[in-house]
């Protein structure tokens, strides 16, 4: 018989189908809105599993112990931070410290628990007044001919030498195992240090060590940008007539000449050939992007719209494009153009975008973006990376407080940026992370801002 309450099974199925359809549709639209892409470190390439042994001491005294400890920790950190290794944790390493190829049992390292594909080991000691360090890189899977690298280092004995030797050896390993890309262990970061009421330009190693002052101008100095060959540092400094572009020579250890002009002159950026500098200048009454030679002569203007134009950066691979920030439509947005001022393209579609940095391979822009900016809005400024060809973007920082001034590393795998957890300008500190947003850590304490990574 036919019960009127019971709905035919086909209707149930229809309802379920419809429900499933809506669910699927909702999921699809969520993914579409994200439109993410992968940067190199998260592209799914398996990282090389590398075991880094403590080096064997070849001399025994307290000085050797201290320097060797510095060397071991620096080498381990450099390889762990490289972004291309899966580093074996110290607790899984075999209990041996081989110092020479004769002393190592390679098989011990290739089996569990280490399961390493590559092994780094060697000896470290002080002879006379010099550090003598022998480093080896072995392929743990090739038992017949395992040696990949054998390096010897010989430097005056000091804490800093121990650190620099570790950086150089790490870069050699990275160069060999990453298929030719330059390691960053010897690169430097230039930044603004808040010294009371003033701001000076300082320098540090890429891992935050060796923080030291470069300028002593006793005023507000901002936007340090190192030249591609690391010989000169351009920055903007407050003089009695306003902000001017100034130049510091790292080779001579003093300020050198840069032609001054009237108006407010900001945010210098080097062309990759080191011969030109782009910067924002208001000499014509409105801040526009100008390009001059490295001494400030032969300046020409390349933007011409009413509204603040600031923070230019060259495409480091081609040198023929400039990205910059313009307030010509209201809140500042991200644009790119050719270096003659043509082919202007707007990249961001709203919010408050600022402080752009172009990746070394020319494909990505890193910038600071507050996508909900406005009076009364809970705005949060975070670091974003945008793929230029598609304008798709990913957000790298979340809920950590205001972030600004991202700068790409020379290997394109890391980004350094400034962050203040409580929003106060005086509490800015410099952080580093991989270009996919992982492995964030602080390089400085509070009072550091506007970092700029060297080109090599």
């Amino acid at each position, binding site marked *: 018989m036919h019960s009127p309450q019971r709905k035919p099974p086909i209707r149930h199925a229809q309802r379920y189908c419809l429900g499933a359809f809506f669910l699927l549709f909702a999921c699809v639209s969520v993914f579409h809105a994200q439109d993410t892409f992968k940067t190199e470190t998260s592209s799914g390439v398996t990282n090389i599993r590398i075991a880094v042994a403590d080096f064997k001491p070849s001399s025994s005294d307290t000085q050797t112990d201290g320097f060797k400890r510095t060397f071991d920790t620096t080498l381990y950190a450099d390889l762990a931070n490289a972004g291309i290794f899966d580093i074996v944790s110290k607790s899984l390493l075999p209990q041996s410290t081989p110092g020479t190829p004769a002393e190592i049992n390679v098989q011990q390292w290739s089996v569990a628990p280490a399961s390493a594909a590559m092994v780094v080991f060697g000896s470290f000691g002080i002879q006379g007044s010099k550090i003598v360090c022998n480093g080896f890189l072995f392929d743990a899977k090739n038992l017949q001919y395992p040696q990949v690298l054998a390096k010897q280092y010989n430097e005056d004995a000091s804490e800093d030498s121990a650190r620099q030797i570790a950086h150089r050896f790490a870069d050699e390993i990275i160069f060999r195992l990453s298929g030719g890309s330059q390691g960053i262990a010897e690169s430097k970061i230039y930044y603004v240090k808040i010294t009371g009421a003033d701001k000076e330009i300082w320098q540090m190693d890429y891992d935050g060590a060796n923080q030291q002052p470069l300028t002593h101008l006793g005023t507000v100095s901002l936007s340090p940008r190192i030249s591609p060959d690391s010989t000169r540092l351009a920055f903007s400094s407050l003089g009695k007539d*306003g902000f001017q572009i100034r130049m510091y020579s790292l080779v001579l250890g003093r300020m050198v000449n840069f032609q001054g002009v009237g108006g*407010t002159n*900001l945010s210098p950026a080097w062309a990759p050939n080191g011969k030109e500098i782009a910067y924002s200048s208001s000499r014509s009454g409105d*801040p526009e992007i100008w390009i001059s030679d490295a001494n400030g002569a032969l300046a020409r203007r390349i933007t011409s719209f009413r509204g*603040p134009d*600031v923070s230019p950066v060259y495409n480091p691979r081609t040198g023929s494009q400039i990205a910059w*920030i313009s307030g010509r439509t209201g809140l*500042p947005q991200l644009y790119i153009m050719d270096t003659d001022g043509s082919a202007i393209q707007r990249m961001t579609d709203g919010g408050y975008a600022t402080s752009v940095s172009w990746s070394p391979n020319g494909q990505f822009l890193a910038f600071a973006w507050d996508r909900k900016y406005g009076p009364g809005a809970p705005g949060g400024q975070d670091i974003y990376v945008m793929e230029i060809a598609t304008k798709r973007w990913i957000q790298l920082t979340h809920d950590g407080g205001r972030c600004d001034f991202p700068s790409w590393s020379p290997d394109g795998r890391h980004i350094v940026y400034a962050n203040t957890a409580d*929003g106060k300008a005086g509490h800015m500190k410099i952080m580093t992370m991989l270009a996919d947003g992982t492995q964030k850590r602080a390089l400085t304490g509070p009072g550091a801002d506007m970092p700029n990574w060297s080109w090599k």
Partner: protein
Amino acid sequence: MIAVQIKFPRALVLVATFVALGAVTGCHKKASGVNPSTLGPAPAAPATAPTATITADPLAIDLGQSVVLNWRSQNATSVTIDGIGDVNLNGTQTVSPSNSTNFHLTAKGDGGTAEANVRVTVRVPVAPTAPAPAVADMGSEAAFHQNVKDIFFDYDSYDLRPDAATSVAAAAAYLAAHPSIKVVIGGYCDDRGSAEYNLALGENRANAARTALVSAGVPASRLRVISYGKEKQFCTEEDESCWQQNRRAQFSLDR
């Protein structure tokens, strides 16, 4: 009788005669009556006192010009001029004194000492007195700030609000009434947003204020612009009233 025949040759006799004559008269010059080498020094007649004169041409100069000194001495063995030192017994010298000088010459000789003077006058220009401090000319700070009020802006904006028009007019009137006042206009931003962009925005704010004043008749040469972005803050609270205080173009006396 002895008939000695003198057989001396006649030449021999002649020679002897000449020799005898020579011995008597001598073949030499006729000597003067006095051998000078036997004379003693001349009896010391009283030594003549030295004399000296010195002149200068011209006698009066402007600072930086030169004077030619000219001196003569007689019966002197050494001559000195104060300020120059030992000089020739007669001579000239060009000098450039930096202020009025009395050139005093001393001539020493065997007969005594002689002196001579000449006075050279140097006209030194009086340094002009420094102009009176600008404060007196520019009026007081208080009066300035009462009449020339700062202009405030909306967030991310460098356009003058409608209420700014009245303060611009009042400021322009005050500046017209005090033509010696020069103004420096500072552009400021609140501390949200990025340091570089805010410096450019501050520049635009200050320039907007400058343009407004110029349109109201103030000569552009009296107005100077500096942007401070968010580097200098008037207050530090994280609320809208403080942020509004910081979004401004500030007018100050440009000393």
